[in-house]
């Protein structure tokens, strides 16, 4: 998905390169602060919505739209920074097994029903998201997860 060269060329060594790095760093910090502010405002707005309403759909759709726009920009411009070395697939096998087990258990509970006797993860999340403050925090955490995914 990201086969193009990095957006920014390596800065030149010396004072000019240092100045360029500082300008780039400051721009990234300002952009990050702006995005965090926008995300916080959206989370506050989402905290006052309830599922199955137009307001909830709009708040969620705005976040998904921003995520898709950021992903498309990343595809067009390439990675912003050199990729870090990661361990092979085997190092994450335990997480894969745990995720597969949780997914299987979730599906089993979903089809076993009734929900009160076989609660799914959604059952717990719905209970936690019942208050505006907790709903806002969950929404902010979801946004942060999406931002993290875009930055990978």
């Amino acid at each position, binding site marked *: 998905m990201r086969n193009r060269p990095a957006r920014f060329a390596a800065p030149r060594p010396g004072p000019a390169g240092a100045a360029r790095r500082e300008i780039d760093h400051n721009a990234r910090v300002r952009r990050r602060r702006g995005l965090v502010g926008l995300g916080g405002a959206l989370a506050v707005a989402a905290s006052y919505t309830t599922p199955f309403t137009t307001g909830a759909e709009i708040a969620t759709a705005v976040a998904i739209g921003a995520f898709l726009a950021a992903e498309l920009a990343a595809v067009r411009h390439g990675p912003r920074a050199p990729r870090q070395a990661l361990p092979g697939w085997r190092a994450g096998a335990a997480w894969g097994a745990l995720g597969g087990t949780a997914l299987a258990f979730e599906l089993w509970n979903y089809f076993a029903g009734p929900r009160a006797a076989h609660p799914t993860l959604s059952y717990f999340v719905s209970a936690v998201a019942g208050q505006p403050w907790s709903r806002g925090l969950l929404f902010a955490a*979801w946004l942060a997860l999406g931002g993290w*995914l875009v930055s990978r």
Partner: protein
Amino acid sequence: MSDRLATIVVWIALALVAVGLEAVAVATHRLAGVGTALSRLARPPAGRLVLALGWMWLGWHVFAR
């Protein structure tokens, strides 16, 4: 033990396993942490697509529907 209690116990056990895996990863570096594992999954386009679709589904499912 009722079905409900048994189900909750299994969910708690799975959560404890996740916490244990992360603790082992941080303490020993012999396993990948959850962040590293997800980063590894996000590297190939197919894995990134799965994570992106999963993130979008999660938000829509929890907050909109």
